[in-house]
């Protein structure tokens, strides 16, 4: 449980920090620091247990479905990192208090910093590899926030995005690798994974898994060729650099290598990839560091180089390499953190980080200079400082490896070369900044920083010296236990002494120092040579890469999504053709077993008319009025077909819908151009005809196949129960209002919504109202022909009577609410046509919206009514009554339901047409060219 508290306390610190915005900066720092300090105390409390070889575990069920649990583990390696994270973290809190200016939000900074700390603690304490990944990604996120802290600067924005991109990509690779690892092992539990090294390494997927995980580690640790993001992350405030790029963020990758060392290391592949990557990074970083004029740039490349060194160590196949790696992790963290802080002080007090301007600062800030010089010396590997010790171990281990077979001698040589550059850039850091004449063009007069800003540096430099002088006393315990955690078994003998006698590693150190100083003195020539090389700005490259990707994506997407509906429809139809067409070829015989009906001449005539109508429609599709007349034949013949094939209800519905549709299309014809221009090229027409006829053939074939097969359906039930269960003899109607009344409820809702939508569509619509027809004829003057007006008046009562008739008989004979509604509506539309909408609305000022709502409400209420009889929604009820004189009369809830349908249909249809009519009153006709 206490384990959980370590990250939890730091998370708590983040939350506390975020609310300290209004407080004094010092108070804010103190409040922030309390929680990590407690966490550090907890870690110290557990130290003896860890040193004695214990591993503390704590686990909490979280996501059993996936196999992620909240599971923590404190062993030597974790403890080492916890110390670094919390220790240096606390120092950074103190340092940042003085570093950040009044303009910067302290609260936000600390909140982000503590969030980052939480993420780091989470990584190192995770005992579940997916949980580890979660925290891993959290470091990417929180570091993004920290690097972009000064987002007003373009470099900060770009640097942060680049860091996020690279580490994010690595994170994805890592996730893939970890899931594969989990699959190989059968568990995401780190303890299990660490014990399954042999299983993993012998698995077929080991190479892929390894590469994916290494991708994660290398991107995070800025290993070549992913190193380029790190220097640009230096746009962050220096406390961030001091924290992220010494002890934490970049070390997370190293931690990962160390963590999975028992599970993944020990194969040729590992040594080759890890070793060579480390070596390349080591050399490249050290070399470039020399040429950076920016103080933090120098430190950044130095960091890359040192990370390469550690990686190389982890990639060496010698027994003590891992120990050396761990030792260098500690040492690098200490001296690099202090150096960043020193650089920050210099920047803070002198206003620049450019070494070409910074000269002779020793005079102005001797105390800080001394501290920086010591730390720098440690970085160069000067004896009596901690850097020297681990570097000696490193040199020693390079001599014992056989990674490159017969060419293994290259490694110590190149390591020495890297040492040369390390000495050179360290020398530059000391000489070029603190000596070398006078400062040039500084805006500020440099001086010593505030007292407490120096304290963190002092502590760290002191550690450099203490570790350097009495290593056994300080780091033995932690180094041993961490190393055991990495190597996985008892360590071979080693000795953390300052003096090992005159030996090859010492010689290598000596060469490095001598040659390094030589290189530094001859730096002009090197600088000239370097300047002659083309400079590569990773930031610019990254931006260019993103821009290019965006450009290409846009081009690609625009070429596909070209905004052409015709293309979209074509693709849709092509899908239909393929998916519906292919299975047709699976059929052995298209025709089924049913006997066919003979073709009578009158049917042939009907079909002929239908086909002729359809063809005429497409032949004249550019002369719209003619195509409209032609398509009416089709509608008429469809109704006839419904009559012919025993569907009187359908025939009625189709007929009446046809009339209303024609009216709608007439409206469309008026408000749209009269003719369709010839636009399609001949190949396009051929293509369209080809796909249209192909689909026609497919659908026709399917239809034929279906028609010629016997059908056994659930409909026998409807026939059997319509009268007894639904109270009607028109089975279609009983289905509509009873068996499947729910469909009908939805259907009238659709109609109602359509009417509302149309009303909405017509709001504030500037209509095109041509003053003449397509051939330039002015419209006739007579608005309301007398004959039409008076006949339509006389027809209205008759139509209403017929509606009532059709409505009432619907349950037993062809008819029903829908048809009746359309008849009524059509009669009203006739009034609109004959008299105009003003005339109608002055006589019948109905609110169609309310009519529609009431209609649907009646239908809905009929359905809900059955609840009061403890029946499901829409359960119908009917009863026969004997009325004197009249005889047997049926009352049915279905009639109420159908009434709802009727009202909705009337309301919707009229709303659609009336709202359009109303609109034209307001608009004067205008010429539209």
């Amino acid at each position, binding site marked *: 449980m206490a384990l959980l508290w370590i990250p939890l306390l730091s998370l708590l610190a983040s939350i506390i920090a975020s609310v300290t915005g209004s407080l004094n900066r010092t108070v804010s720092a103190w409040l922030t620091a309390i929680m990590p300090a407690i966490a550090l105390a907890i870690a110290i409390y557990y130290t003896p247990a860890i040193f004695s070889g214990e591993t503390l575990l704590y686990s909490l069920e979280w996501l059993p479905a996936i196999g992620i649990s909240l599971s923590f583990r404190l062993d030597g390696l974790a403890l080492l990192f916890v110390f670094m994270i919390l220790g240096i973290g606390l120092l950074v809190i103190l340092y940042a208090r003085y570093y950040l200016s009044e303009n910067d939000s302290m609260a936000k900074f600390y909140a982000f910093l503590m969030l980052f700390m939480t993420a780091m603690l989470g990584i190192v304490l995770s005992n579940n590899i997916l949980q580890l990944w979660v925290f891993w990604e959290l470091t990417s996120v929180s570091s993004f926030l920290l690097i972009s802290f000064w987002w007003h600067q373009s470099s900060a924005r770009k640097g942060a995005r680049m860091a996020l991109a690279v580490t994010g990509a690595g994170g994805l690779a890592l996730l893939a690798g970890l899931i594969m690892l989990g699959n190989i092992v059968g568990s995401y539990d780190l303890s299990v994974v660490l014990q399954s090294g042999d299983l993993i390494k012998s698995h077929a997927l080991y190479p892929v898994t390894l590469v994916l995980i290494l991708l994660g580690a290398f991107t995070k640790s800025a290993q070549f060729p992913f190193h380029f993001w790190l220097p640009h992350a230096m746009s962050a405030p220096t406390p961030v650099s001091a924290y992220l790029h010494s002890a934490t963020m970049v070390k997370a990758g190293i931690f990962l290598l160390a963590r999975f060392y028992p599970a993944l290391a020990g194969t040729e592949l590992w040594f080759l990839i890890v070793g060579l990557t480390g070596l390349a990074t080591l050399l490249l970083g050290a070399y470039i560091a020399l040429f950076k004029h920016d103080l933090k740039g120098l430190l950044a490349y130095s960091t890359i180089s040192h990370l390469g060194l550690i990686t190389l160590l982890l990639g060496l196949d010698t027994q003590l390499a891992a120990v050396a790696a761990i030792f260098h992790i500690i040492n690098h963290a200490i001296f690099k953190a202090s150096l960043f802080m020193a650089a920050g002080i210099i920047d803070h007090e002198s206003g620049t980080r450019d070494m070409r301007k910074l000269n002779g600062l020793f005079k102005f800030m001797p105390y800080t200079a001394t501290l920086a010089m010591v730390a720098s010396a440690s970085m160069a590997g000067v004896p009596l400082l901690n850097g020297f010790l681990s570097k000696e171990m490193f040199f020693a281990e390079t001599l014992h490896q056989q990674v490159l077979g017969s060419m293994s001698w290259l490694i110590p040589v190149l390591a020495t070369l890297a040492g040369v550059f390390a000495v050179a850039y360290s020398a530059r850091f000391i000489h070029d900044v603190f000596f070398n004449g006078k400062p040039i063009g500084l805006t500020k007069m440099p001086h010593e920083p505030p007292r407490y800003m120096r304290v963190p540096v002092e502590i760290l430099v002191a550690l450099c010296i203490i570790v350097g002088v009495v290593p056994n006393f300080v780091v033995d315990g932690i180094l041993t236990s961490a190393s055991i955690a990495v190597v996985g078994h008892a360590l071979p003998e080693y000795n953390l002494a300052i003096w090992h006698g005159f030996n090859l590693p010492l010689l290598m150190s000596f060469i490095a120092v001598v040659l390094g100083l030589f290189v530094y003195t001859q730096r002009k020539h090197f600088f000239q040579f370097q300047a002659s090389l083309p400079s590569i700005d990773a930031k610019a490259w990254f931006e260019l890469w993103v821009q290019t990707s965006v450009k290409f994506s846009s081009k690609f997407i625009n070429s596909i999504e070209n905004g052409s509906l015709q293309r979209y429809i074509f693709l849709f139809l092509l899908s239909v053709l393929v998916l519906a067409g292919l299975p047709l070829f699976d059929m052995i015989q298209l025709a089924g077993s049913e006997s066919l009906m003979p073709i009578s001449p009158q049917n042939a005539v009907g079909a002929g008319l239908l086909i002729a109508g359809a063809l005429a429609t497409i032949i004249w599709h550019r002369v719209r009025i003619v195509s409209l007349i032609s398509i009416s034949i089709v509608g008429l013949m469809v109704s006839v077909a419904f009559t012919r094939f025993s569907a009187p209800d359908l025939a009625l519905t189709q007929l009446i819908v046809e009339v209303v549709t024609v009216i709608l299309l007439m409206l469309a014809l008026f408000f749209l151009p009269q003719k369709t221009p010839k636009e399609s090229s001949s190949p396009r027409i051929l293509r369209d005809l080809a796909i249209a006829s192909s689909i026609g053939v497919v659908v026709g074939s399917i239809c034929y196949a279906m028609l010629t097969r016997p059908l056994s359906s659930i409909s026998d039930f409807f026939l059997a129960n319509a009268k007894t269960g639904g109270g009607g003899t028109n089975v279609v109607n009983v289905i509509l209002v009873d068996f499947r009344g729910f469909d009908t409820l939805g259907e009238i809702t659709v109609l109602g919504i359509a009417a509302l939508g149309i009303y909405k569509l017509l709001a504030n619509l500037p209509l095109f109202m041509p003053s003449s027809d397509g051939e330039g*004829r002015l419209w006739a003057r007579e608005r309301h022909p007398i004959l039409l007006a008076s*006949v339509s008046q006389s027809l209205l009562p*008759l139509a209403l009577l017929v509606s009532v008739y059709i409505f009432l008989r619907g349950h037993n004979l062809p008819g029903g609410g829908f048809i009746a509604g359309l008849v009524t509506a059509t009669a009203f539309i006739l009034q609109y046509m004959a008299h105009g909408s003003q005339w109608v609305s002055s006589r019948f000022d109905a609110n169609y919206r309310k009519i529609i709502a009431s209609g649907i409400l009646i239908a809905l209420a009929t359905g809900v009514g059955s609840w009061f009889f403890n029946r499901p929604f829409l359960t119908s009820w009917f009863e026969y009554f004997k009325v004197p004189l009249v005889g047997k009369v049926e009352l049915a809830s279905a009639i109420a339901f159908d009434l709802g349908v009727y009202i909705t249909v009337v309301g919707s249809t009229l709303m659609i047409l009336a709202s359009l009519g109303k609109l034209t009153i307001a608009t004067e006709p205008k010429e539209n060219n």
Partner: protein
Amino acid sequence: MIFEWFVSVLLLIGGAFILIGSIGLNKMPDFFMRLHGPTKATTLGMAAVLIAAMVYFSFTQNGISVKEILISVFLLITAPISGYMLIKAAIHHKLEAKKGTKGLDNIEDD
């Protein structure tokens, strides 16, 4: 038997008039003349068919069937309106009348 003959004759008359109406639609030289066939001959043809139906259903089904009259009524009401609107449209479109049509100057600008 008489009933059957009666129905048959009526149907044949009806069919004939309907056909003649449509022949007129095709045969006449101008729109105004074409209009006469459908508005007249067809009306009578329809009436004959409907009476046939009336007689037929009165004999074959229970009770007499007279509702077919209604169709005729509706046609009598609506057919002149269709014709009227059509001829108005034709006049508006200034369709050519057959050469020698008298009284063209009676048509006013609409």
